[in-house]
């Protein structure tokens, strides 16, 4: 039985841990689990799934919602390029929506789609084997799978995908979901040293797990974003000495800003991480046999390490779209809020859709700025919107308006965010305490709530998500529980952004994708 937990929904109730303690474990609220438990656990897993108060445990991907009505298109050929989280989810939703034509999934990785978040968590600790993170078997989609071969080009006018092995796959509609890959260390010779890793695929995870299990003298991590921080956490759990080098002033700075970044820094240091901020790696150094020996840092110091993980972000898999005429570049593939791709002239296409890490879309809540989100929940939700829109006519399309939700677990802490934390000028701890590392932080931009981050307080996030969607005033000015004295708004310390000066705000209403709508709220008035 395959298990996947939708951790964007999980609120840390822990009912699954009570009922299946051999499969699910948690520290405070950070849930980890075995995605491929032994057969003798089936009964326990079923009990756990039934008991989940928010129904976040998926044993299969059967419909979450009933079909939204008779689709405009039942027939035809739909091709999905990128057969991972977003691609596989889209195929499943297409069938749920009533699409009866052919679905072809094209993927350059061999084998079935797997889940990536556990790769930097359970897999590295050894709790789950690298090959055991396959996603739950799709409801029989009857899709045709073309695996192990990359798509090499997209011919929009001729409506076909060209594969690297020379084959052509015709389509009526196509979904682009090729995601991102790990950004490599820029010096190829240094990147090739034995002991230097990146982490994106299951093969990467297997190699890195083996390297950590061998008991290196020290691990060096380049970059303290979510991936780097999670790997550092695993190293400490395995009792390995670890040095983290981060260019910014704190870990997680580019995602959550400097205030929460400082909390994260405290967390790392309290767990024995040698954290060096405001520094970069100047060079990776090897021995004559080509094995990593250490690194030279920009401040002139050196670190001796026999394993290094380059965790410097990602690169979008868009090269194959060169020449397609789409607005595809290092920023991703631009699309509208309904996941329809935009061409180089800024025109919306009819038959080309985009979802997941690769998509760059305008978000009404954030002044229609284009953004791409590298989140699990974003891949799943956007795939659902894209799939629905692919088979619906103009009048029945859904906009993608969900406030994004992201999670991470590190050092036993469950970190979650809703909204876009970098879209902020101020931040305030509204509940709990940063010193205890159990809190809710709310982000504000020009007097309205734009994001929230929780450390082991996921239960409250839904409330703040509604504040975000309702463009509630910042700072929140109501009385509520667990407000500590002295916590007021402070500068958010997020990376600078260019901002327009007009003062119109969008409010999002509705619960299900079918109901969600944005409306404009002009300063001082209502929609």
């Amino acid at each position: 039985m395959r298990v996947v937990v939708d951790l964007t929904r999980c609120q840390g109730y822990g009912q699954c841990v009570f009922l299946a303690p051999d499969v699910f474990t948690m520290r405070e609220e950070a849930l980890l689990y075995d995605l491929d438990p032994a057969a003798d656990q089936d009964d326990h897993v079923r009990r756990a799934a039934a008991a989940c108060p928010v129904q976040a445990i998926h044993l299969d991907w059967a419909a979450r919602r009933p079909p939204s009505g008779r689709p405009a298109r039942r027939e035809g050929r739909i091709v999905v390029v990128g057969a991972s989280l977003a691609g596989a989810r889209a195929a499943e939703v297409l069938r749920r929506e009533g699409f009866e034509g052919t679905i072809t999934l094209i993927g350059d990785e061999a084998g079935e789609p797997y889940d990536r978040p556990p790769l930097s968590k359970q897999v590295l600790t050894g709790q789950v084997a690298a090959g055991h993170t396959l996603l739950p078997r799709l409801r029989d989609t009857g899709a045709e799978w073309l695996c192990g071969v990359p798509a090499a080009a997209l011919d929009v006018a001729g409506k076909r995908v060209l594969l690297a092995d020379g084959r052509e796959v015709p389509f009526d509609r196509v979904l682009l979901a090729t995601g991102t890959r790990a950004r490599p260390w820029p010096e190829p010779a240094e990147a090739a040293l034995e002991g230097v890793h990146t982490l994106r695929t299951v093969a990467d995870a297997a190699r890195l797990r083996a390297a950590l299990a061998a008991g290196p003298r020290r691990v060096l991590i380049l970059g303290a974003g979510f991936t780097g921080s999670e790997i550092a956490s695993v190293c400490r759990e395995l009792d390995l000495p670890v040095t983290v080098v981060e260019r910014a002033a704190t870990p997680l700075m580019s995602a959550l800003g400097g205030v929460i970044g400082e909390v994260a820094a405290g967390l790392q240091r309290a767990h024995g991480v040698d954290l060096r901020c405001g520094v970069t790696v100047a060079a990776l150094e090897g021995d004559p046999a080509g094995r990593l020996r250490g690194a030279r840092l920009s401040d002139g110091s050196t670190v001796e390490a026999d394993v290094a993980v380059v965790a410097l972000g990602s690169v979008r898999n868009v090269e194959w779209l060169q020449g397609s005429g789409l607005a595809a570049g290092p920023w991703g593939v631009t699309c509208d809020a309904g996941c329809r791709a935009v061409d180089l002239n800024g025109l919306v296409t009819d038959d080309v859709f985009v979802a997941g890490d690769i998509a760059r879309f305008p978000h009404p809540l954030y002044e229609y700025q284009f953004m791409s989100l590298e989140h699990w929940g974003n891949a799943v939700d956007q795939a659902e919107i894209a799939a629905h829109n692919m088979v619906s006519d103009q009048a029945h399309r859904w906009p993608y308006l969900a406030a994004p939700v992201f999670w991470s677990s590190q050092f036993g802490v469950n970190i979650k965010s809703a909204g876009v934390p970098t879209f902020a000028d101020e931040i305030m701890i509204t509940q709990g305490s940063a010193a205890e590392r159990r809190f809710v932080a709310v982000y504000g931009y020009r007097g309205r709530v734009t994001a929230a981050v929780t450390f082991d307080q996921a239960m409250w996030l839904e409330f703040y998500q509604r504040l975000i969607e309702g463009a509630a005033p910042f700072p929140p000015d109501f009385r509520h529980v667990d407000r500590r004295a002295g916590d007021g708004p402070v500068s958010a310390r997020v990376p600078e952004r260019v901002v327009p000066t007009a003062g119109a705000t969008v409010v999002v209403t509705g619960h299900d994708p079918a109901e969600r709508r944005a409306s404009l709220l002009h300063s001082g008035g209502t929609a």
Partner: protein
Amino acid sequence: MSSPFEQILDPARRADPYPLFDRLRDTPVARQPDGTYVVSTYREIVSLLHDPRVSSDRRNLGSDAGEAPRDPSFIGLDPPEHDRLRRLAMRHFGPPHAARTVEELRPEMLAIATRLIDGLAGRSRADIVDEVAYPLPVAVICRLLGVPEEDEPRFHAWADQAIETLGPGEQDRAERERARREVLTELENYLAGLAEDRRRAPGTDMLSGFVTYHGPEGGMTHREVVATAVLLLIAGHETTINLIANGLLTFLRHPGLLDRVRAEPGLIVPAVEELLRYEPPVQLISSRIALADIEVGGTTIPAGSPVVLAVAAGSRDPAHTPDPGLFLLDRPRNEHLGFGGGAHYCFGAPLARLETQIVLGELVRRLRAPRLVADPPPYRPSAVLRGPRHLVIDYAGVDPA
């Protein structure tokens, strides 16, 4: 004509309050004459369960200012005190420190259930409340907490009275609180003595854990130990009794159901979840207070107002659950409010689930041709914790374990 909510509170309507709950939902947020706001639709209840502007601490209710503050247990506290006390209690009960405690009770629960059902053999009539639904959870909570079983009849009486004096709304509140205080004082004195014993000679039970544990964030004070123990003792069995009794009642009203669960014992798992939705023991979550003006479902609940969440109505909200009036074993993604939600999500839920799955499963498997003697059975008066006072059944025999 009184409001649907006032009729729900009327003990005469206890046997079938669901038509009233359906009417209650017509006004998702309904102000009562005493100033209480009753919320009855799924989305609105869930949003208030996660709303930090809603307090569980009655000391925030202005009009109660004259009341002598007793030591609330964590159910009556807000974060951070709530979180600290609940975590200290959870240490000895569940994850992360004692994840296996409940699961490891499984063989013992089965043994107790077997013994109780064996006791029904050789006759053709029994009261399932008195003979099974009550003794099982009591034996389990006693075992867990470390209460000697011979003391059980004494706190049975106390716990019953404590429940009966519980209620929503502000009418007679002062009087009910006084009666409640008296009973709880007796129970507290008993548990305080027990805690003293455990301090001197600790065992492996939860009470021993409460009195001996001191960690980085401290431990429980003596008064906190007593308040927590009272809470767990009462909540630990009064709800489960009702869940078990409601469960057998539902099965006997739907004979097809009984046959299906007998043929496929694994179905007891979704059956218990559906029970929690369809016939929940906890029908109302009362004693919440709005700390600020809260706009919900198109109504503003003014700061300082008492709030009642009608979870039994929410779990049958057709806007959330298709065909909510049907008991469906194969209901997909059964998200219900049977154990509440948010920071106060039922502490003992895992225990209640497992006990009920085991004992109902065994009753279904072993009882030959069971049938109800009276439908509806007599009910206990409480509108908050609803369940039959007695559930008399006739049966053709009892199969061996």
